[in-house]
């Protein structure tokens, strides 16, 4: 169900634009790193399950590790989704609009995305300081909880930059140069 077809309506030729030459690899590395982390967690959990069912006792704190990994992934995956226009929307009722108008509308939403991610990033950086100040740790692994905020601040910041860079040429025709090399 809920995945999106990435090729669908890809009206955006900017993949080769100068800015995106830098942004795309960063987003892909971020997502790939997140993927490797969750993949590693899957292997660790499997080992833990096998050990436990052999009566050797599971890996201590595997639950907590999975939780930390899930938080990290959510943040690291985000910029790529933003870059790929991966967010679901309903385009049925605006299909009658001229292409330019649709694009401009999408640009406005993307700009709002940029504002939202920037706001979240700012608040998460405050949250990071707060949680670090409390010295909150996970119960078993004693892993500092603020670690989970680092990818969150990074992921939202990068998503904000990506969304901003994408939205401007969509809204202002004069800025289309940002897209095409």
């Amino acid at each position, binding site marked *: *169900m809920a*995945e999106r077809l990435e090729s669908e309506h890809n009206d955006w030729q900017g993949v080769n634009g100068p800015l995106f030459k830098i942004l795309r690899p960063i987003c892909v590395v971020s997502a790939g790193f997140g993927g490797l982390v969750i993949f590693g967690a899957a292997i660790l959990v499997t080992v833990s399950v096998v050990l436990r*069912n052999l009566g050797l006792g599971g890996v201590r704190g595997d639950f907590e590790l999975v939780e930390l990994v899930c938080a990290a992934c*959510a943040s690291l*995956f985000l910029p790529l989704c933003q870059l790929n226009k991966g967010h*679901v929307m309903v385009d049925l009722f605006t299909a009658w609009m001229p292409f330019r108008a649709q694009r401009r509308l999408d640009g406005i939403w993307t700009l709002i995305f940029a504002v939202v991610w920037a706001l979240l990033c700012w608040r998460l950086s405050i949250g990071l300081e707060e949680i670090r100040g409390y010295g909150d740790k996970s119960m078993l692994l004693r892993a500092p909880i603020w670690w989970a905020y680092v990818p969150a601040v990074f992921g939202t910041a990068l998503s904000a930059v990506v969304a901003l860079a994408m939205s401007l040429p969509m809204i202002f025709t004069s800025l289309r140069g940002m897209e095409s090399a």
Partner: protein
Amino acid sequence: MDPTLIATIMVVVLLLAIFIRMPIALAMGVVGAVGYSFLASPYALMAYFNTAWVDKFMSYELAIVPLFILMGHLATRTGISGAIFQASNAWIGHKRGGLAMAAVAGCAMFGSISGSSLATASTMAKVALPEMRKHGYSGALSSGSLAAGGTLGILIPPSVVLIIYALLTEQNIVKLFLAATIPGILAVCGFFIAIMVYVRLYPEEGPTHEKADLATRLRSLKDIWHVIAIFVVVLGGIYGGFFTPAEGASVGVVMTLMVGLFKAGLKFSELMDCLIDTAGSTAMIFAIVFGADIFNVALALSQMPAEVADFFRNADIAPMTVMLGMIVFYLIMGCVMDSLSMILLTVPVFFPTVMALDFGLMPEQQAMWFGIITLVVVEMGLITPPVGMNLFVISAMAKDIPTSQIFRGTTPFICAEFCRIALLVSFPVLSYWLVGVVAG
């Protein structure tokens, strides 16, 4: 301002925003945040944002989502789908319309190790569509059976939609998976019947072909043993007491990887592609989960869901009427909206309402029954025009089949689904009987 009024405005604005192309995650998040500021205070909203993102996703329960998605993507890359389809084909492909049935059966098998409909539809279409066209199947029948078959990805456990429902309503995921089994089998039967009726009416659209000999048939089974092994270990392990759902998903990832490495020679670059694909799908789901979270907190602040539930509890309306109203609402919304967004949007209001009604069931049974019905009606949205994600997948893969043909091809399956909904609504026992038997 009256909280209920604010909540009403929120719902209206949200729908308007969605209708003018605003991404659903963004619409729910922004409308929710503004509503939150009015109902509580902007200060509280800012404080909430300090930790909300990390809080939400530092979750063992939610980790099951990327894990099952990764397992599905790995399964897609390992060529499992080809073996599955060949096996189904060898056994039933020769009958009239048999290839379409084989495609549905293949989708069911693939769905038993994948939690997503789009993955199932696209993976199976890749192998089944060319084969059907080669044997002279019409565009309508071949695309329709694959679009409908794809929905088995979420109807048959594991299912990402059911996981989200379980999280929203604090139900047991294992029991919900069990509850979905009989309705899932009914779906397969319904699709088979739809195909049989269809080829009866239009015999030229699903021609017969040569029957495979017994040796071929048996050999085809040998090629899918690992699919059966993954299915048995993952779901059997969860039901049989060896591990929890998230652990099952992890085991599934590792087993699918093994199959990929040893059977299909999966390369490291392909593994990385899987991880990148997983990132895209997961981020999209999580963004909606986060947006819906703010929206739902704001709704809770207005106390509107509780008031709606109270209204229906006290109103003199037959519970079944309310239930049918919700189903109709879902079917209409499903024509234009994405399944996951719909669930995240409606369940926080509908679930307390349904639980406040007396259907003569135990609360847990009622929760499972409603979960299954929600799953089925929401899933129908994937194949109802004009916005049906599965239709788009098939359409993107079969450029030669006009959209009108695809719509025509899904019609018999939509009819089958209506019959199934009627069955599930009339006989709640179909949804909870197996749970009672297995889980005691």
